[in-house]
């Protein structure tokens, strides 16, 4: 759960592109299909002579083993989903919050003030990224802060635009406060 500061409002929320999740799940889908294909192969070609897989008992063992395999893969899908769904970037009217879920028990939350941003860079890593509109976003901040990166983010141009707009607003507000203080 993210705790917002007083007066802080959520402006934009973004995750990695859906393709990241889809590719990982597709790999697991392939792993789910391979044993079934292998069994068909064994059945058609009789690769292991003398072993009867396809008696009633044999089939029951196969269904049992395959179900266990699918249960394990389902858990992996849930793990990938957890990683995808809980990895999120939040842009508020005060700061950018980077929430990173690393496995089940490691969660990292970093944030930086909008007025500290010095440079925003977008990297579109190839043809697919261009067509599906995803890319990597690098944000350089002032001071001792590190460079913030978000990989394979959906619609990076929109995110850059929003962060830049909020950065300018935050800077303007900061200058306004300074001028008001000088006058009084």
């Amino acid at each position: 759960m993210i705790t917002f500061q007083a007066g802080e409002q959520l402006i934009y929320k973004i995750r990695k592109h859906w393709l990241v999740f889809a590719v990982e799940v597709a790999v697991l889908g392939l792993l789910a299909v391979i044993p079934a294909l292998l069994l068909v192969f064994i059945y058609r070609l009789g690769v292991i002579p003398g072993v009867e897989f396809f008696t009633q008992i044999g089939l029951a063992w196969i269904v049992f083993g395959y179900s266990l395999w699918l249960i394990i893969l389902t858990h992996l899908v849930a793990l990938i989903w957890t990683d995808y769904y809980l990895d999120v970037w939040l842009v508020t009217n005060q700061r950018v919050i980077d929430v990173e879920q690393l496995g089940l028990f490691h969660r990292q939350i970093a944030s930086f003030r909008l007025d500290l941003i010095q440079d925003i860079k977008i990297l579109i890593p190839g043809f697919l990224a261009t067509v599906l509109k995803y890319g990597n976003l690098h944000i350089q901040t002032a001071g001792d802060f590190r460079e913030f990166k978000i990989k394979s983010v959906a619609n990076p141009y929109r995110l850059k635009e929003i962060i830049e707009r909020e950065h300018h607003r935050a800077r303007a507000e900061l200058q306004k406060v300074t001028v008001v203080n000088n006058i009084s």
Partner: protein
Amino acid sequence: MSPIFSGLTFKISYAWLGLGVLLVVSAILTVIYFYHWRKYGMNTGVVVLTEVLYLIVIAVLFMIAGLALGQIT
């Protein structure tokens, strides 16, 4: 030698044990997943949909595994 250490009975006992262990592990993982999704997920609709889908798939798979093992027994 007792029947549990002979032939098919031996295998079936271990298969049931394996299924039981997987059930316990799955239950623990389910609690952990649900805890994470409920605590950190920001959209209740998506979280509930994920939980329902996950439970249906896991329940169906365990049912199939149990029925298959029941056929052998």
